[in-house]
């Protein structure tokens, strides 16, 4: 077959027509108003059950559902089902062309989706970070001063919800989507359209959460505890819809990852040769598929309480506030490991490269990842030690919570022994990985106090627990997120990031992160409650210190942003194919990776960690061998 001449480029206005982000936004707004007025038209307000509320919650739900459907239709997600209904044969790929327009439309190339995720999640990460800056502004004074109380609570809630919701996909979204197919020697994910759907659903969800400010915000924080949730104003509906959509996106993302890893591995890639990052993705994806549906279910109950006046969470009418807390944390505790596990995997994946040694104790590391994944299901009531729920089960939950530190310890042991006697070079990704050890150690050891029921009586609901989970999630996830960015973004985009700025970013971030959260551990012990802008005067110095550190931490993020934009948009220094000397397969491909990843499906003969064990594996099929995987 001969290569056909590319058709002449179409004018810009013509390219704006069609199924793309612009159409999607327009149809989304249209669908929103359709739902809003549709709900009013069918007289939702006049139903008996809605008489005693001032607000018409049903309209809010229908409006946003209409908006989401319009958005997805505008992106072209209905085209394929309709084509199949009309009798066209199945296909896998859409819009896998070159050019920038594919980033703003439904594209089934897993590499495009990965980069879409990186920028999309980055956007909401910065909105969430901005919220944190505003929260710290308020905390400069022991009294409520900068914002009205409702606005402050909305800021707290949006910061938490945005970070928990969006950063759940913070590593699986950009990096697993981009890298897992390459690492397992495939050309695509198992379900390319579902892969794109998870991303665009997340963006729709982000827009919904951001627009909560037009409906009065929500007062509950990211946990959305129920009797308060039921009485809150319509901004709460945005929270429910946001988290439910994130739940759908998570379920599908996890499902897609598991199916891909199970079925699409290249010849020779046995389970013990799988890169540890893929194992981390797998153990996270299992949690996603099983935990997120519980979240969707509990939020559905909340939505029914708010619209149809059911009484799932209303104790006076046969419900229970414990029901919400139970179900939420059945999701919520696996959720925090969904955040942490990819971080473990990235650390273990990167350490061998920069210590120039094989990954120590591969099987133990895998056992650690899977063990955390399994145990995380049995610990949820440690969030409820003082709630009065099942007081006699507290010793069990204390034990199960502390048991999790055993598989987590495997990760530490494997990481530390990989470094031992290695040839360690302090590159930027390596610095972030080493910082992970420090942060997660502090996070883990502060967790010892929280898991101990007597000590938890004082620390529960205080800044201590808040600082603890910032150490584990920000210190565990966000630091490895940046390690992954500095390690893989040159591969993904084909351009290098500026190393000097990156080092400044690391050192400012590491110092000010600790300077922000270490004093908060003390503030919690001294009695400062979470989510309250009012605290006793003796804590003012600590809080001022923390606020200033937090602002400097924000500036460090701006340095990163500047580096990203400057390096990728202006300098455009081409990246080498293998700048780190890695033996992993993605670094044997050109930067950026070509559209179909491989000319031939590679054959694996070893794991990618054989540093010091002879020449790097070539991954190549012998010439003349039949193409294909059988």
């Amino acid at each position, binding site marked *: 077959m001969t290569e056909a001449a590319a058709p002449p480029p179409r004018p810009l206005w013509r390219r704006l027509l069609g199924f793309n982000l612009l159409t999607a936004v327009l149809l989304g707004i249209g669908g929103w108003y359709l739902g809003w007025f549709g709900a009013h038209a069918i007289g939702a307000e006049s139903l008996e059950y809605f008489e005693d509320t001032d607000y018409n919650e049903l309209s809010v739900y229908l409006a946003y559902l209409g908006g989401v459907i319009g958005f997805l239709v505008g992106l072209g997600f209905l085209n394929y089902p309709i084509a199949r209904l009309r009798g066209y044969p199945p296909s896998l790929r859409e819009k896998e062309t070159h050019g920038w327009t594919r980033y703003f439309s439904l594209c089934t190339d897993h590499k495009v989706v990965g980069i879409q995720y990186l920028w999309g999640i980055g956007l909401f990460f910065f909105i969430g970070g901005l919220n944190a800056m505003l929260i710290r502004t308020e905390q400069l004074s022991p009294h409520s001063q900068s914002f009205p109380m409702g606005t402050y609570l909305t800021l707290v809630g949006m910061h938490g919800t945005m970070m928990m919701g969006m950063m759940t996909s913070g590593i699986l979204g950009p990096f697993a989507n981009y890298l897992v197919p390459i690492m397992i020697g495939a050309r695509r994910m198992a379900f390319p359209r579902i892969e794109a759907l998870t991303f665009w659903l997340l963006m729709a969800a982000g827009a919904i959460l951001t627009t909560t400010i037009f409906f009065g915000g929500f007062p509950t924080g990211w946990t959305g505890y129920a009797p308060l949730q039921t009485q809150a104003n319509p901004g709460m509906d945005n929270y429910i819809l946001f988290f439910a959509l994130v739940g759908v996106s998570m379920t599908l993302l996890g499902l897609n990852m598991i199916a891909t890893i199970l079925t699409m591995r290249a010849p020779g890639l046995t389970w013990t040769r799988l890169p540890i990052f893929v194992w981390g993705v797998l153990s996270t994806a299992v949690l996603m598929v099983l935990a997120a549906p519980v979240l969707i279910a509990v939020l559905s109950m909340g939505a029914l309480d708010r619209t149809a006046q059911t009484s799932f969470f209303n*104790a006076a009418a046969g419900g229970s*506030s414990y029901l919400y807390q139970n179900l939420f944390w059945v999701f919520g505790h696996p959720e925090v490991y969904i955040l942490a596990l990819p971080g473990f995997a990235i650390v273990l994946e990167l350490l061998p490269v920069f210590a120039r040694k094989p990954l120590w104790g591969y099987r133990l590391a895998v056992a650690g990842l899977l063990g955390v994944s399994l145990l995380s299901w049995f610990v949820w009531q440690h969030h409820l030690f003082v709630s*009065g729920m099942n007081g006699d089960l507290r010793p069990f939950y204390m034990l199960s919570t502390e048991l999790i530190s055993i598989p987590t310890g495997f990760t530490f042991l494997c990481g530390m022994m990989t470094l031992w006697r290695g040839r360690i070079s302090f590159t930027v990704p390596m610095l972030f990985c080493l910082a992970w050890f420090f942060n997660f150690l502090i996070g883990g050891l502060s967790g*010892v106090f929280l898991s101990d029921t007597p000590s938890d009586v004082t620390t529960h609901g205080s800044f201590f627990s808040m600082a603890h989970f910032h150490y584990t999630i920000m210190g565990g996830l966000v630091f490895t997120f940046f390690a992954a960015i500095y390690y893989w973004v040159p591969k993904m985009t084909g351009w290098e990031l500026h190393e000097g700025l990156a080092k400044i970013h690391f050192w400012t971030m590491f110092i000010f992160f600790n300077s922000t959260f270490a004093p908060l551990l003390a503030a919690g012990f001294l009695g400062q409650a979470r*989510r309250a802008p009012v605290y006793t005067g003796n804590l003012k110095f600590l809080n001022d210190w923390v606020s200033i550190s937090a602002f400097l931490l924000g500036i460090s993020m701006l340095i990163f942003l500047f580096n990203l934009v400057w390096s990728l948009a202006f300098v455009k220094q081409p990246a080498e194919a293998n700048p780190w000397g890695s033996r992993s397969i993605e670094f044997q491909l050109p930067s950026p990776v070509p559209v179909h990843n491989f000319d031939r499906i590679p054959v694996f003969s070893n794991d990618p960690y054989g540093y*010091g064990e002879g020449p*790097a594996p070539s991954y190549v099929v012998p010439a003349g061998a039949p193409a294909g995987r059988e």
Partner: protein
Amino acid sequence: MASEPSAATSPSDSTNHGLRVVVVWLVLSAIATPLVAIYVGPLIPPGNATVQGQGQTFDNQVMTAFVTPILCLLAVFFAYGLIQFHVRRNEAILDGPPIRNDSQIQLLWIVITTVMVLFLAGFGTYELLQDGSGGGQGPNPIALPAHHQDAFQVQVIAQQWQFTYRYPSLGGLESNQLYLPANTTVALHVTSLDAIHSFWAYELGVKADANPGVDNVAYVETKGPTTFHVRCAELCGLWHPYMFNNGRVVDSAQFQAWASQQQRVYASIKPFMNKPESEGGAPYAKTYFPEPDRRAG
């Protein structure tokens, strides 16, 4: 393709680095752990105002001492490892020794972490069952202090956005001040009228969530007279940040004086929640379901 890394390994190294780290770690831990246990541990709140608070402080002291050797190990390991094994400036990056495993170290690590975890869980359970540690235990507490049968009952009724304290032994007296008699075992029955709140008496070492329809019991054994802060520790709506007040532990003479003064003040006010005892009502309901049960607004 990119520059292939040199496959050569670095020259073998006969120094016993492991022994050095272990020795330094043992010495450091032996010095640091007692210091931390003696000087840092007791500084950790909530303090010694009550038996429960004292128990928590002791717990924190033990755990601070417990985590110190772990912290020391990691500190020594990384300080030594990163200094000893990093690639010097202008040095060629060679591959390290291809050590993939050591089953003895794995076994040792698993055994040690398991023993540590079991110790922590056992210690925590023991401490909890001693006296309940001031935490809310639900309607049927299992961790009871010594004199729980004749504990002084106080009901804490949380609502948006204040606490009301109800004393069944004082004829159902309701007050917005929390006074507790000194040297007494107190049973706090915490419940809520609307959203989830949390009753946190910081200096007493007490925290118990207030759920609507739930009688959440927390025990505290007071010691000498003192004052303490009470605040809501669970986000409960708009004015949650201002849901706090102060309480006092006073000796019995002062407590009687305060009680009769309060009874005089509130004598003219009909008890809000229940019929008074004289009309056959109980002085005390475990939970309350105020009407209307639907949400307002």
